[in-house]
């Protein structure tokens, strides 16, 4: 008799396991994830970011990559610029409406508004209205994919579409026509955004480019102070 019990116990056990797996916490749908993550990122006391542009950027867009710490609107970043086929690194600080630059030689200098217009205004990237985190809410047709590991964290990728004029707001060098594909990798339940990617013919009507943002150190307090000049 005892032997006949065994298969039943096994079947019962298996059913229980399957039932438990199926009833595990379901991740929210794409739109909810985007809204929650957008709010989370806007509320952070600080974060580290890395931005990398690949593909066709053309002569009008010198910025190739940037990395630094931000507590919007303040931020401190190192930026790689491409000038005549050569990569050059500069350092920028945005601190309470003032902008400072540390170029190839010498110390820090303060920039005027006219000079900032020559570069790109990195504050717009994380601006609460125009920036990337606000753009998450304006992403249409969101679709949540299967879980993916990004920098060692379990995230859900959310795919969607961003209109050209909207992306143009956060980076004015981007064309304001057509639409671009955006993907966000969001961790649950923390709602931390670990990676965001925008692809399309960003800088030229017929040539593709991609911008990838990687975030880390979520909510680590960042305080940016004005640098000593000279």
């Amino acid at each position: 008799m005892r032997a006949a019990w065994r298969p039943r116990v096994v079947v019962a056990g298996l059913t229980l396991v399957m039932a438990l797996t199926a009833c595990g916490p379901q991740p929210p749908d794409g739109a909810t994830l985007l809204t929650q993550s957008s709010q989370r990122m806007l509320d952070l006391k600080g974060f580290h970011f890395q931005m990398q542009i690949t593909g066709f950027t053309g002569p009008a867009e010198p910025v190739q990559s940037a990395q630094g710490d931000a507590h919007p609107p303040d931020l401190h970043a190192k930026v790689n610029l491409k000038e005549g086929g050569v990569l050059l690194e500069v350092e920028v600080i945005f601190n309470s409406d003032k902008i400072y630059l540390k170029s190839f030689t010498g110390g820090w200098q303060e920039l005027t508004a006219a000079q900032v217009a020559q570069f790109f205004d990195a504050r717009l990237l994380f601006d609460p209205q125009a920036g990337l985190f606000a753009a998450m809410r304006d992403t249409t047709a969101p679709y949540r994919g299967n879980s993916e590991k990004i920098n060692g964290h379990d995230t859900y990728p959310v795919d969607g579409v961003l209109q050209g004029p909207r992306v143009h707001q956060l980076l004015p060098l981007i064309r304001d026509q057509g639409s671009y594909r955006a993907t966000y990798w969001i961790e649950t339940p923390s709602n931390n955004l670990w990676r965001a990617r925008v692809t399309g013919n960003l800088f030229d009507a017929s040539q593709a480019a991609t911008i990838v943002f990687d975030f880390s150190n979520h909510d680590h307090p960042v305080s940016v102070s004005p640098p000593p000049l000279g």
Partner: protein
Amino acid sequence: MITPFRSARLRSVNRPALLALTGAGLFLASLDAYVVVTALLPMLTSVHIAVNRPEQATPIITGFLLGYLAVMPIAGGLSDRFGRIRIFAACLALFAFGSFLTASAPSLSQLVTGRLLQGAGGGALVPAVLALAADLYPAGDRSPVLGAVSALQEIGSVLGPLWGGLVTASSVGWTWIFWLNIPAAAAIIWALWPEIQSRREERRPTKLDWVGALLATAGLALLTLALYAANPEQSPVGAGFLWQAPLSVLFFAAFVWYERHASQPLINVRRFRDSSFSGSALTNAIAGAGLMVALVYIPVLANAVFSMNASGSALLLVRLMLGIPIGALLGGWLAYRLRSYRLVAALGLVLAAVGFLMLSGWTEGSLKPHLIGPLTLADGELFLTGLGLGIEIAPVSAALLDAVGEAERGAGASFLIVMRLVGMLVGFSLVAGFGLWEFHRATAHLLPPLPGLNPNFAAQFAFYTLKVKQAIFDQYHLIFRATAIALLVGAAVAAATLRPLARPRWQ
């Protein structure tokens, strides 16, 4: 470590073919030792590193040297234990794998790892091929073959920068320097395959001094880290210098202590009491440092202030590299005729120091004035520097080999290469850190003009560029003068310590 086996089978194989194949592998690896000096800027750009952060290129050079130094001392013993050709093939495969990582690197860390593995694979080939050559030929016939193997290694390293410059300047780009290694290494291993597979290759259980090799490598790795100025704006040495440097000294002390008590030490440390031995070792290291400074900074100078491309800077360097083999032959002959190592070694180092002093006076117009026909004064100065660095090789090497005696000659030959590379590693690390630190100090208050509503921008920018070029020149003048002083110190050491030639006698 050349301890030949008397293998009847090995002597029955096609010796020239075996030597040609292994020699080709050795040549391939030696080409890559300094191949990067003319390709550094494009390499940095392709891993997204800005040209105004050149300190990040330092590990591309030091990584290779460190890998080379880590395996060289034990490779001879490994080839005793596992078979020469097998170790040769395994290390050539490692070299090819390192080349693959370097060529395909998306990041600086992979680039440096690739260079480290290239060095480790390439460094092991030298003792393995020397030992194989010693196996294949009896004692009386051996020296021309060993000489040819060493010459192949030297020629490869001399041609490396030219090869690198030509490939980098061509349309295929710098990665092909490294991609091409893979089919070449594969072809050599394929041709050696019957030998690798045959289980008859002689092996001998050898006691390997793992502890000694690990202590020495740990000491060197820490010293390299301590001297690596990752942030030359703040400090001419590494951020961890204060703990890494003493720790590396501790490792070296432990190495010396261990070697005194080891049954089969890597190097007989008691030899250091002999001033001719330690003097020639030190002189050799200083000369290595001098060569490395020339190899790295002449191409960078050519690029930064003379606006030459990779092949242009390689061709400029060739003038110096040409002097080295000519000087090497001349130095050997002079030492023999004058029956003095100290005189000839000191002469070579003084000539090299004079060469460096002349180079340190270069200005933007230095490449223009013609001396005789198409030759410029700069050509002569470069050649003189190379000639001096070549003249010193034979007397310094011979003095060290005389000091160790017949029984330790193989270990002595390895030690010579090791000391030269240590000199290159330490000398280059110091020069790179202090040079950039000095550049940042000189330009600390030089603010670049900014465009945008600035009517005088063009004029201001031209003035700024002039100032930056001047600061770069000042940095080089300092580096070349410091190298000249180091070489003069080397000349004094050689003059004070090297013993005269032994009276020739039959043994």
